[in-house]
């Protein structure tokens, strides 16, 4: 299952800066292509959606398929005009949701 999200967001920035955000979450991303010892297909179980919000509004999101590697890594950009909170949300095929937040001070 998904666990231990790690996100890197700068602690501060100037208004109008475009910052880089790096995220990583632990997840097997079982593709549904593998078979177990008995030859049965191991069912797909992946994170299928990622969303980044800033002060409640969506900034960036992804629809993720089984071809994304295990422990999905996502790096993207955001323009910050004011201080606030980034919220990161990962959703699994079975509905499990993992969230984490990061603050940023914008001068």
């Amino acid at each position: 299952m998904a666990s231990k999200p790690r996100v890197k967001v700068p602690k501060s920035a100037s208004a109008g800066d475009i910052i880089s955000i790096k995220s990583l979450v632990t997840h097997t991303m079982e593709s549904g292509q593998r078979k177990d010892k008995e030859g049965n297909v191991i069912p797909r179980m992946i994170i299928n959606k990622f969303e980044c919000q800033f002060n409640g509004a969506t900034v960036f999101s992804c629809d993720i398929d089984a071809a994304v590697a295990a422990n999905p890594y996502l790096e993207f950009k955001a323009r910050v005009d004011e201080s606030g909170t980034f919220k990161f949300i990962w959703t699994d095929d079975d509905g499990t949701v993992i969230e984490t937040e990061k603050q940023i001070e914008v001068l």
Partner: protein
Amino acid sequence: MNLNRRQLLAQTVGLSLAGLFGASTKAFATPEAVAESVAAFADGSEVGSGSLKLTAPEIAENGNSVPIAISVDSPMTEDNYVKSVALYADGNPNPDVITFHFTPASGAASASTRMRLAKTQNVVAVAKMSDGSVVSDTRNVKVTIGGCGG
């Protein structure tokens, strides 16, 4: 060039084969299946090139985790921004990889991730802009150890 040939092929044969190329009913994706997906994503717009750059290694040491990145030259203002970038793989069991959705608050239309590649194949990126225009870029990646765990 390659993509245009595939698109032409997809247009002449793709419609009749569309039913057969369902996501989970065949062993591996094909360039035609990817051309179908690209056409569906483009939703009627002609697929151009130039502003979108797909970065992928020429040779992937490990097909289980191949770093890829996309970047689109765009002002990312309310009137002119990149809405989505979809990635497809034409030799994986399933051609879909990921679709990035941007907003003007993204500041820049660039993103990277790591993907699985089952074997040597083309990775295709397609970007759709807020004005409906579509551009794409393709990279061929050689894979020595396939990454589908099979």
